[in-house]
């Protein structure tokens, strides 16, 4: 770790000092962290111990464990204090909060510095690091929303979203089925496949390459806003019209990436194929497609999130009364913003898993690419 790595613990030290010595509540100067009872002391001691450990032995396992404990305790205690200081949080509250966060950040750096490992440890690390990051994102959100009393109808706190999520599982499941399992999957498959096939067609027939590619570009930015109502006209209210919008949205990234990817093979590799008098399709399948794979997977990855956005937006323009986009637009109108965010959370989860699956397939399919070898 470098100078930046060392800066964090020292900043945290200053923060801890501030948390102990300043008032917790801006309305009540008497309210101080050390007077909050034994639990507060546990937090203070844990933080101090972790900081000493980090500064003395930067990367030791012990420092990691202490950091984990201190950050968790600090975060938890911040949340405990939150309701009682909502709207009038004092400097010590913010100091405690920022210190806990710095500790968590230290922890992430320590964990991220562990060299890439295989097996269970590696998988554990790959999951734990973004998880810590994410949990802290949520804590920061909760603290800011509550401490500043941001209106509920603008952004609800994650705790409220979580509560809503748990109580609305049947609705969320039905929406997920309608939007993701039907519209997104179907549209994604057809859109990526057609972008790919048109790219091959363009590549195969030079005449089309000059004629069709410029026209294919016309499809590049057909705005969802414009085509969604038309697709509803053509394909009805149910999911096929959303799938059609997804098809149009995912077509172009695949087209462009495949066209570039097909041009990416090395001249010498192509010469080799020439010496075999390989025909077009043999060259395509045995050389140019493998070489194009990194590009094609880029498109698949970009499309995995694009498809979801497109399907949800498309549902703003006429749907049966089920679906993630329908729910979002309806509940916004009803000021049930917690439900909106519960739906967004489902979308984010689904989209991330979708992307992750594509990324895993990519790793398996293009293991030979330098990006996976270094």
């Amino acid at each position, binding site marked *: 770790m470098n100078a930046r790595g060392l800066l964090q613990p020292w900043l945290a030290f200053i923060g801890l000092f501030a948390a102990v010595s300043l008032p917790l509540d801006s309305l009540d100067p008497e309210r101080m962290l050390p007077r909050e009872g034994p639990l507060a002391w546990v937090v203070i001691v844990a933080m101090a111990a972790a900081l000493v450990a980090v500064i003395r032995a930067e990367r030791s396992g012990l420092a990691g464990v202490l950091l984990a404990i201190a950050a968790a305790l600090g975060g938890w205690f911040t949340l405990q204090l939150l309701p009682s200081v909502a709207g009038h949080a004092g400097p010590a509250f913010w100091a405690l909060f920022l210190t806990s966060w710095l500790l968590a950040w230290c922890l992430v750096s320590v964990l991220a510095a562990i060299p890439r490992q295989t097996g269970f440890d590696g998988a554990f690390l790959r999951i734990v690091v973004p998880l810590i990051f994410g949990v802290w994102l949520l804590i920061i959100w909760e603290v800011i929303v509550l401490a500043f009393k941001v209106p509920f109808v603008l952004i609800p706190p994650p705790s409220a979203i979580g509560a809503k999520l748990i109580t609305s599982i049947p609705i969320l499941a039905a929406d997920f089925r309608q939007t993701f399992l039907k519209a997104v999957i179907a549209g994604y498959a057809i859109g990526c496949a057609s972008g790919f096939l048109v790219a091959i067609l363009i590549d195969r027939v030079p005449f089309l390459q000059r004629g069709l590619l410029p026209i294919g570009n016309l499809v590049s930015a057909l705005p969802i806003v414009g085509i969604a109502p038309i697709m509803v006209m053509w394909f009805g209210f149910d999911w096929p019209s959303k799938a059609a919008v997804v098809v149009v949205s995912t077509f172009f990234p695949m087209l462009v990436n495949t066209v570039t990817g097909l041009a990416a093979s090395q001249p010498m590799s192509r*010469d080799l194929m*020439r010496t075999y*008098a390989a025909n077009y399709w043999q060259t395509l399948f*045995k050389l140019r497609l493998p070489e194009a794979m990194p590009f094609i997977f880029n498109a698949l990855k970009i499309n995995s999130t694009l498809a979801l956005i497109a399907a949800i937006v498309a549902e703003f323009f006429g749907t049966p009364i089920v679906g993630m986009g329908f729910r979002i637009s309806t509940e916004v109108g009803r000021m049930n913003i917690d439900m909106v965010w519960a739906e967004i959370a489902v979308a984010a989860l689904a989209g991330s898993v979708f992307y992750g699956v594509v990324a895993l397939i990519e790793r398996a399919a293009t293991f*030979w690419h330098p990006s996976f070898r270094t």
Partner: protein
Amino acid sequence: MSDGEAAHASTKEGTAIDIRGLSLTFETNDGPVQALSNIDLNVQRGEFVSFIGPSGCGKTTLLRVIADLEQPTGGSITVNGVSPEEARLARAYGYVFQAAALYPWRTIAKNVALPLEIMGLSRAEREKRIAENLALVNLAGFEQKFPWQLSGGMQQRASIARALAVEPDLLLMDEPFGALDEIVRDHLNEQLLKLWAQTQKTVVFVTHSIPEAVFLSTKIVVMSPRPGRVTDIIECGFPRDRTLDIRETPEFLEIAARVRHGLRAGHSYED
């Protein structure tokens, strides 16, 4: 193979490669480069011809023209009596590139299988040829490795195995043994000679090693750069079943000296 055979039959015992007044100029960002100038060369079926010459004299370019990988800008050339393109489409030759050119997503065995798949050979036949040729170049046991897990010399040998597996009548080899040590090289030289003697192949071979050229060839083409041209063509009359011992004979040393002389003439600096 079968296509190659057909093309072969028609010109059996005839001319394999006929080059007349061939020249080739590359257009580059800072002006044209004349890589080949007025080359005349005739290679008979069954010959073993080596190209030797200073680095950059056009050996690779000439080999590529024969293989229809480069279009000459002047002169004429036939391969097996037809144009290089037709010969290529008839799969008349096997080519070993100066660099290994293995596909990184294929294991060594799969890389050797590549031309065989393209020719549509049966799986059994493919497996037989893969095993045979990998053993020939001493790579048995490395079938499942990927190219980047092999040393430079091993990659080069894999690419030789790939070309041999095609069993072509005409072998075009561009410094195939450059990255190999003396022992392996001697071994492969002998194997190549054996193969050549047994199967009556025509071999066109680029090398930098004078002894190698003299040992292997029936004809040595000495080239000279700027512009690339043929300065000498030396016939060597050693029997087909020669062994490494001939390298001590006076004829051998004499030819080697002549080649070295020709080679030196192509260089600008004297030593």
